[in-house]
């Protein structure tokens, strides 16, 4: 193994050597710089690999040949090796990235860069506190130099501000070091014995050291100078500043803190405040680099929090902190590098990235890494962190971290939305190849790190799960035509179903049929799209992969990973819609909020045990159980869009693409239901202060069913109407599930099946209409029945089925519902359900009337029937509904029997003459037959009498002696249920939306107010830094200085 000191020696030596190079021979100077950085990286890499392979021991490198504390020693352990690699590699890549700037500024700038990287590795490795100070000062000065690489003239002022604050910090640090030396008699960090938390003598000295180190981490709110640097510096340098400097400084703080665990709470407090504060401030940023700066600050804050928890984290500390750190560093470096590709500084200007899909993919990857989504390191780290903290009774911290992470996800995904949806600037000159290359390398590093962390994790590696790999394979297949990809996708779904079929229990089977087979059927509609359809199949398949894994998940980890994967996939899928940017954002915000609740729930339930079997939910301790239940239920209910958590759904479903809407509505919502199912299966009887928690779910379900339907009837947008209807239907399902009896569950399952079928069908039908009319506003359509008969039939059948009118399958649901509530304990919520049934009828009628009946419009007179491929799945659904109406037992019998294992009582009896319950009976075949015969007879009668009716046209109506002039004014469709609105409108006041708007507004306003704090005045920044010290001192010493 090469001595790690050579990293420093090479960096320094090369920096000095650059002096020999003629000022004009920039190529040589650059080559030398790169060679040195490469050598440094390789040494670090060698060590990292050696540690990874277990071939190396932590090594102490003595300088001057004397042992510490008399001489400075360096240490090379796994963490040091990895960090050095990170630093050096970032430096190397940034150097390539900044080639033009470095050429422009000459060998001096290269030397400064080399020294900076060298000093960063020095910070990482040194074990001497004063040496640490020296390296820090080197960083300060080098930063002062590298800031100048920017073409932004404002960087100069930023550099000066930075220097001013750095002066204040170094004063603190130096005084602290001096007194620490006085107290300890040594400058070696290992000799700084445990210093008790106190603010006099050694304590105060250590406080000064720590506070200086924290200030180096740019804690909120004393970090304005750093943000100015981020904003104005060359992105290549910002990448170093964020990824490498931040990490190194953090490691320094960690080193010092490790000596005195008593001070850890200070780190935790500062860290979490920084994490949340910086994230809130980032909300209001429009400047990409400044936003990245805030995000960097926040991430470092999170890391500091984790450092503060190292006493609890124990062996997992490195894994967790490393995971977050690596994710942060790679993603942030990648994003800063990408920002160099973007010509302008507004977030919306990132739309230019769309010129290259790989860049969008990279952007998505980096965002996912920062947010901590699978399969990236942050995910595993977050999982373990939450578990350990929960087990250590630090739920409050988990809550704060998750809130902060949610805010961060909010602005990052908003930004991603800008990039994918906003107008790309015109006259785009193209991307620099080497900069793009660097981004791609980072991208690769990101995925590699994901694989590594997955491999290191005690839990299964997400990247080795077959469905995920299959989904990711579509990234490679992207150049193929959409139809071939579609075929592969269908084959994949069906193939996986066939492959897994024997392993499913009946419940899983039903969900698997819906997800896999149902997904395949919906994919038939995707044949309608030609070309390559970039960016559709990977997220779609990712979603299906998540869903497929979800229903098979046996441990909480697999479950949660699948959950996150399907969330991520569906987000990208929803985002594809033309106008879906804000809706996709609220979708991901709510979904992640829900996911975090689930994470917290699982963590609380597991109480430290890993892997945690899902079935073990039943054995959660009495004290924790209700909280676990609530957290998980809230999490799952965000996905089923229960009332209060529903506002993301209408937009997300309505604005999605035609074949995406059925996927996210018909299939994705079932994930939440499946989660609830599993939850109730294991924890159904959880009590909270003596009240059965399912009571609340029953109420929530009923209210969702009612209000969802009520809101649906007031929609003018067809897809929105269907979306609200989903809220209502999911409310039904939740209600019936929470009834906790045999038929309730059977009913829920019927809803699962039925909702999939008719919602997919209706969404496709409406989508088909949309494909022709280019509008979703129902009042702009009308009279399409003759032009689109097939679409009409599927909507008609869908409506009959959905409203529960016999003889179609919806009635079976109602029948089971009545039987189910007969044995339920709750009566009041049932009123709402009773009311929502007919309300469903209202909006469905509105749907079919406004689109297909009434007056045909001028511009629609020549429309064609919906595209063939959109009709194919619809017709399959029609056939299915008819078949399911006659022989519901085909599927339900098995499930009925399966449910008996949970509720032996109250099952159904399946006889040839019908289905018999405890209270009633139902013979689908007879119903179908009787109604059919009557219908046909009456029809024939009418035909006999009225066969010679004259077919008239749409204006031939008795119009009180007048006649219509325009179809628009004759089609009664807008504000269709005006009387209803008069009577019940008060119930659909946007209270929930207002509430969530208020929440975001408060956050935004806070951010807007707080950022005024960053006046841009260097003195103020310095004053803030000073204030930070002073306030910490005051608080720490209990206000009695």
């Amino acid at each position: 193994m090469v001595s790690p000191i050579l990293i420093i020696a090479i960096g320094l030596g090369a920096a000095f050597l650059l002096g020999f190079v003629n000022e004009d021979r920039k190529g040589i100077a650059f080559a030398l710089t790169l060679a040195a950085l490469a050598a440094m990286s390789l040494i670090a890499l060698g060590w990292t690999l050696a540690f990874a392979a277990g071939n190396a021991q932590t090594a102490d490198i003595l300088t001057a040949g004397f042992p510490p504390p008399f001489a400075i020693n360096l240490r090379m352990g796994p963490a040091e090796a990895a960090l050095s690699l990170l630093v050096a590699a970032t430096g190397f890549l940034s150097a390539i990235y900044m080639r033009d700037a470095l050429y422009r500024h000459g060998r001096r700038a290269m030397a400064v860069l080399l020294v900076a990287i060298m000093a960063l590795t020095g910070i990482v490795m040194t074990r001497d506190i004063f040496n640490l100070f020296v390296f820090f000062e080197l960083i300060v000065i080098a930063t002062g130099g590298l800031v100048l690489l920017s073409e932004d003239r404002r960087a100069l002022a930023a550099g000066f501000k930075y220097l001013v604050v750095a002066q204040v910090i170094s004063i603190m640090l130096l005084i602290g070091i001096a007194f620490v030396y006085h107290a300890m008699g040594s400058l070696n960090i290992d000799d700084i014995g445990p210093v008790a938390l106190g603010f006099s003598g050694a304590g105060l000295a250590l406080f000064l050291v720590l506070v200086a180190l924290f200030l180096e981490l740019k804690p909120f709110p004393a970090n304005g100078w750093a943000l100015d640097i981020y904003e104005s510096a060359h992105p290549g340098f910002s990448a170093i500043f964020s990824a490498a400097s931040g990490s190194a400084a953090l490691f320094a703080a960690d080193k010092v803190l490790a000596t005195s665990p008593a001070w850890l709470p200070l780190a935790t407090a500062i860290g979490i405040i920084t994490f949340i504060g910086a994230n809130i401030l980032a909300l209001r940023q429009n400047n990409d680099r400044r936003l990245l700066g805030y995000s960097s600050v926040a991430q470092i804050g999170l890391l500091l929090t984790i450092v503060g928890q190292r006493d609890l984290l124990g062996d997992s500390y490195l894994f967790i902190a490393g995971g977050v750190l690596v994710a942060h560093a790679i993603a942030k470096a990648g994003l800063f590098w990408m920002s160099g590709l973007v010509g302008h500084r507004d977030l919306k200007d990132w739309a230019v990235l769309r010129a290259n899909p790989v860049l969008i993919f990279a952007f998505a990857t980096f965002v996912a890494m920062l947010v901590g989504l699978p399969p990236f390191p942050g995910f595993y780290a977050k999982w373990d962190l939450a578990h350990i903290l929960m087990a250590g009774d630090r739920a409050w911290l988990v809550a704060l971290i998750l809130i902060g992470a949610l805010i961060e996800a909010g602005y990052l995904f908003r930004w991603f939305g800008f990039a994918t949806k906003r107008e790309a600037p015109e006259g785009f000159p193209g991307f620099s190849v080497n900069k793009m290359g660097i981004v791609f390398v980072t991208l690769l590093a990101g995925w590699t790190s994901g694989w590594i962390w997955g491999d290191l994790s005690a839990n299964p590696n997400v990247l080795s799960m077959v469905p995920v790999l299959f989904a990711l394979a579509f990234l490679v297949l992207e150049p193929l035509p959409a139809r071939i990809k579609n075929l592969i996708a269908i084959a994949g779904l069906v193939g996986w179903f066939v492959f897994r079929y024997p392993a499913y229990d009946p419940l899983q089977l039903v969900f698997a049929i819906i997800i896999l087979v149902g997904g395949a059927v919906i994919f038939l509609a995707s044949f309608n799209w030609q070309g390559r359809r970039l960016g559709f199949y990977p997220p779609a398949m990712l979603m299906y992969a998540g869903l497929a894994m979800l229903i098979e998940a046996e441990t909480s980890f697999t479950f949660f990973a699948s959950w996150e994967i399907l969330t991520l996939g569906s987000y990208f899928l929803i985002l594809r819609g033309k106008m879906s940017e804000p809706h996709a954002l609220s979708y991901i915000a709510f979904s992640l909020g829900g996911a975090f609740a689930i994470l917290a729930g699982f963590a609380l339930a597991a109480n430290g045990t890993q892997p945690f079997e899902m079935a073990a939910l039943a054995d959660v301790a009495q004290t924790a159980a209700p909280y676990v239940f609530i957290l998980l239920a809230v999490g799952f209910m965000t996905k089923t869009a229960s009332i209060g958590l529903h506002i993301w759904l209408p937009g997300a479903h309505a604005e999605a693409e035609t074949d995406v809407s059925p996927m996210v509505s018909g299939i994705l919502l079932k994930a939440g239901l499946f989660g609830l199912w599993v939850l109730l299966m294991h924890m159904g009887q959880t009590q909270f202060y003596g009240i059965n928690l399912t009571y609340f779910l029953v109420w929530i379900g009923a209210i969702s069913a009612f209000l969802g339907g009520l809101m649906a009837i007031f929609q003018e947008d067809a897809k929105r109407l269907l979306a609200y209807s989903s809220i209502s239907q999911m409310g039904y399902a939740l209600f019936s599930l929470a009834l906790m009896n045999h038929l309730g569950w059977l009913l829920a399952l019927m809803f699962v099946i039925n909702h999939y079928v008719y919602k997919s069908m209706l969404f496709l039908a409406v989508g088909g209409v949309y494909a022709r009319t280019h509008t979703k506003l129902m009042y702009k359509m009308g009279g399409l029945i003759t032009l689109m008969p097939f679409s009409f039939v599927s909507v008609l059948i869908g409506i009959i089925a959905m409203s529960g009118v016999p003889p179609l399958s919806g009635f079976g649901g109602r029948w089971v519902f009545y039987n189910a509530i007969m044995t339920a304990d709750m009566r009041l919520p049932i009123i709402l359900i009773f009311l929502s049934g007919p309300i469903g009828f209202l909006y469905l009628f509105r749907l079919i009337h406004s689109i297909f009946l009434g007056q045909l419009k001028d511009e629609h007179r020549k429309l064609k029937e919906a595209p063939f491929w959109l009709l194919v799945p619809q017709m399959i659904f029609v056939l299915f509904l008819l078949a399911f109406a006659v022989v519901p037992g085909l599927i339900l019998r098995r499930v009925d029997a399966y449910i008996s294992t949970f509720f032996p009582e109250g099952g159904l009896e399946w006889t040839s003459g019908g289905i018999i319950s405890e209270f009633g009976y139902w013979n689908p075949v007879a119903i179908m037959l009787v109604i059919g015969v009557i219908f046909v007879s009456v029809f024939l009668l009418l035909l006999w009498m009225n066969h010679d009716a004259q077919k008239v046209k749409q204006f031939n109506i008795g119009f009180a002696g007048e006649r219509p002039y325009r179809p628009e004014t004759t089609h009664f469709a807008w504000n269709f249920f005006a009387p209803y609105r008069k009577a019940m409108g008060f119930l659909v006041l946007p209270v929930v939306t207002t509430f969530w708007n208020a929440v975001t507004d408060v956050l935004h306003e806070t951010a807007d107010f707080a950022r005024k704090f960053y006046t841009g005045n260097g003195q103020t920044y310095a004053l803030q830094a000073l204030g930070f010290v002073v306030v910490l001192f005051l608080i720490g010493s209990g206000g009695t200085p």
Partner: protein
Amino acid sequence: MKHMDPNFRKDTKTEFPQREELKPRKVTTPDGQVIDIEPLQDYFCQEPPKVHQKSYFKIVEDFYNWCRAESLWILAFGTGCGAIEMRPLMTPRFDAYRYGIQWRATPRQANLLMISGYLSVKTLKRAIRTYEQMQGPKYVVGLGSCTINGGMYWDSYNTIKKLEEYLPVDLYIAGCMPRPEALLAGFMELKKKIKAGNAEGANKYAEKFDWYKANQKAVIKDWDMPDYNW
């Protein structure tokens, strides 16, 4: 008559601009294709009315006619002052219900059109539409002298004089205005006529369709409807 401009009513030369909504127009479809819309063709059925044969069996036709007579559904459509005379028919004093007479609000379901008084040209247009929208067999009863010869409005610039020139009138009830008793008597007459199979106004209208149209168009100068309002 001497003060009347003979060309006033029968002027067919002057071209009146068609209503904007009924002019052919070009419309861009959602796909960006430009299509022609011919409102009168596209939105209205252009079939001429048909002459409907009576039932093959006389006895059936007689039975039907009896039923038609005993089930007179009057369109609630008032044109002039006579409308006020029709209301009392429903009151206990006259109780038209007992004769199987009812009021229907929609021409689709009514089979008796009462022109209850003078008919201005503007109202004539509506009356024609309404009549054509009723399903045959259908009957027209003119109420009061105004429908017979114009009555006191004989030289009005704006009312028609002879209703039967425009619609096939089955029965006139004279008077200015006729009292409800007269109306009842008129209905009885109409019933008789129907039962006798003589109330074939709808078929007559179809047979002499061109004549009626010519008359109608002669007075309705801004004719802006299809020839037959189905």
